[in-house]
């Protein structure tokens, strides 16, 4: 049974040869593959290249946000790289058959922090890989494991930024710069939030009504959430407010979907390389490679 103990000198020589091949050839082949995939991923984020500079405007994409359950809210958002450059939101209020329309001020853009962070994490991963090109000779397995850990950390963070939108409290949404982006200004009984969830661009519109000071309702401020439910309460200024209606509309961003697939594939490649290296650790457990 005790494989390694009984390994003959010849077996050992073969194993060592295999390990050398792994370190010198296979590792670089995987790293090259990883770089290719991640460069594809970062192209999706329209990274500014060092050669061309940021001067050229990133291309604009329009997304029509809707929902199958409601047609009360429609949004057309324009994405320019990691920033929202235009937004048109239509809100139908059935109570009085009123149609509200508001749009972004022309001079302002709203940065989608999740996309920027994900993009920066990917470029950090690419940077780590670029530092270890073909000319670099790996001397130990531990070195490869360390590199893979560092790359995987960045990729996991990139993925998590897209898959975990910020949980905000209602006062935080009210105080956010996004509400000040609109012209004419948003009515005081509306709150708007925009975020990325997985591969989707999401827009939520909260309709509010003020709680009467003599209201018998038990006032309990809501905590942080990605999506608040009707009935959530909060204090804003000197007023107590309650969410009466919540409208959520969304739209798939195809390139975010691609990017997420690239992250998953890259993470699997990294883990497989780690596993290959680790196989040899059981043969040379005493050697700090």
């Amino acid at each position, binding site marked *: *049974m*005790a*494989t*390694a*103990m009984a390994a003959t000198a010849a077996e050992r020589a073969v194993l060592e040869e295999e390990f050398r091949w792994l370190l010198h050839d296979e590792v670089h082949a995987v790293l090259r593959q990883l770089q290719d995939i991640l460069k594809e991923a970062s192209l999706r984020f329209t990274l*500014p290249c*060092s050669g061309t*500079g*940021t001067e050229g405007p990133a291309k604009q994409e329009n997304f029509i946000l809707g929902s199958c359950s409601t047609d009360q809210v429609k949004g057309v958002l324009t994405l320019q790289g990691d920033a929202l450059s235009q937004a048109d939101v239509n809100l139908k209020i059935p109570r009085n058959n009123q149609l509200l329309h508001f749009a972004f001020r022309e001079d302002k853009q709203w*940065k989608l*922090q999740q996309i*920027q*962070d994900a993009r*920066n*994490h990917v*470029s950090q991963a690419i*940077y780590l890989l670029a*530092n270890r*090109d073909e*000319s*670099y*000779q*790996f*001397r*130990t397995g*531990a*070195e490869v*494991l*360390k590199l893979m850990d560092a790359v995987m950390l960045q990729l*996991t*963070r990139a993925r998590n930024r897209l*898959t975990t939108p910020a949980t905000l409290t209602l006062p935080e949404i009210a105080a956010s710069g996004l509400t000040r982006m609109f012209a004419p200004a948003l009515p005081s009984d509306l709150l708007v939030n925009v975020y990325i969830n*997985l591969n989707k661009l999401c827009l939520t519109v909260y309709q509010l009504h003020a709680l009467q000071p003599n209201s018998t309702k038990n006032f309990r401020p809501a905590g942080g959430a990605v999506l608040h439910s009707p009935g959530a309460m909060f204090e804003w200024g000197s007023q107590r407010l309650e969410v009466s209606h919540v409208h959520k509309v969304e739209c798939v961003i195809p390139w975010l979907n691609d990017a997420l697939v690239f992250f*998953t594939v890259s*993470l*699997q490649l990294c*883990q497989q390389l*780690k*596993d290959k290296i*680790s*196989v040899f*650790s*059981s043969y040379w*457990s*005493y050697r700090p490679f």
Partner: protein
Amino acid sequence: MRSSLQAVALWGKKAPPHSITAIMITDDQQTIVTGSQEGQLCLWNLSPELKISAKELLFGHSASVTCLARARDFSKQPYVVSAAENGEMCVWNVTNGQCVEKATLPYRHTAVCYYHCSFRMTGEGWLLCCGEYQDVLIIDARSLAVIHTFISSQSPDWINCMCIVHSMRIQEDSLLVVSVAGELKVWDLSSSINSIQEKQDVYEKESKFLDSLNCRTIRFCTYTERLLLVVFSKCWKVYDYCDFSLLRTEVSRSGQFFAGGEVLAAHRIIIWTEDGHSYIYQLLNSGLSKSLYPADGRVLKETIYPHLLCSTSVQENKVQSLSFVMGYMNERKEPFYKVLFSGAVSGRITLWHIPDVPVSKFDGSPREIPITATWTLQDNFDKNHTMSQSIIDHVSGTGTVGVTSSEYVPSLDKLICGCEDGTIFITQALNAAKAGLLEGGSLLKDSLPYKVLKGHHQSVTSLLYPHALSSKLDQSWLVSGDQDSCVILWNIFTEEILHKFFLEAGPVTSLLMSPENFRLRSDQVICCVCSDHSVALLHLEGKRCLLHARKHLFPVRMIKWHPVENFLIVGCADDSAYIWEIETGTLERHETGERARIILNCCDDSQLLKPDSVLPVASETHKHKSVEQRSSSSYQFGPIPCPGLQVESSCK
């Protein structure tokens, strides 16, 4: 009476790992501070003769340290701030090693800069921070609370590095930063103090695109008050601070990556690389020459040529290629030195005394500046070998066998140690500790009874004493797993092997037991996690393997039990969840993303595994599980001097 638990960490002959990720020297040049991947800080004495010796290990961070900085005017208060990957920040008094303040913020900092303006500012000053978030955070140096942010109006992005520029001419301070996209931005610092305190928005005064990525350092030349040195990973550039015009670009050799730099004197700079080399240049002024960009309105523009004077390099390490963090410290007043310092992932610190006037050789070729001092934690351990005895050295005979796993059984007063060579020692815990720690303990050593269990052929990676977790289980049972995925069930009283399980799944990384409420035909089962990411369920009474779940692509991070449905839920490092039906051994479901998160959060009897279970490292740093659990409640920040190091200071 309130009982407090004192945690004592014992290290054997091998120093604990300290992979340096950040390094600084205090202003009084008496202490070197290093931060490590393991989360600990180490304080090192630096003697007037530039001799290094480790003083204290500071425990406070639970993640890798990302940066260190001064946190006060050092002559008044010897405080240093450290930040970690998980957003923890600690302020330490480096004289006594106490943690003065701590906070956990949802920000990952990569650089911190202390700023204080005595005549305009009340309080202890600001910590200007940048990292994996937009723009620059201003944090109160005393309370570690976020005061405000310096925000960008133009292309806000993460900031890579920053420096504070104090202009003697206009008596104003500015903050210079470079973003990840390569944009240089300048904020007024001293004149914005009021606006910041009143929480008004402060936007950058100027910004300029530098046309290079991965900026590592930005430095202002205080001697000329004109030159700006910006180091990128693939080039370094010199700019004119007056109009940010480019005076020189120097590109790195292939395979070489710059990591930082500093201005040594007027027209003299030092640049260092990731692999631990440094180069000192004299910047020669070419006078006026044709500009490269005559279109910008200026026909004539001076340029600068670097002339290599000296270089330094670390000792060549044949076995491992390492990365280094480096820094440079200018002398303040006599008898302080100009010191270049580096810390390596291996834990080694190296110092170079840089001469006041570095010169090249007579023939004009660069001179190599020799290493002045170099030291590691291990050097301290080797120097004090009298104390560095492991707790089982006296029983293992040769005294060189590394302990790879351990288990403490308080009810039997037994310490069980699994070793590198496959043997398992069982000794009396308190007496062993006494013999190892207390004076006169050496007498105990020879009379200390112990047992040896021989059955494994490879190092023992994991131990479990089931009775400690469930009193219904047999007191005599011990389960051990090894590097070769062999799991043995022992009777520790008779020292016999009751059963051997061969799993063929790589090293056993951990052994767990199903909770009380989970029973299979009235018996609890053992869960064995292996390094090929598989999970095996072992039935001890039946001496058989119930299930070997082998589909996991990523390392196992969490094990959950669903008693009602008879499911085993396995959470993996990629945040996915695998649901196995125990009776049939089939994979019932595989979920990722949000659904996986919900499934993993549903039952709370989860058993978390160590985040990194790649290679079991042979060392004495294994804490005993039971101590670890209890100590977490009374966990305090503060210095833990290691025994080897303590002896040294008391010898003086």
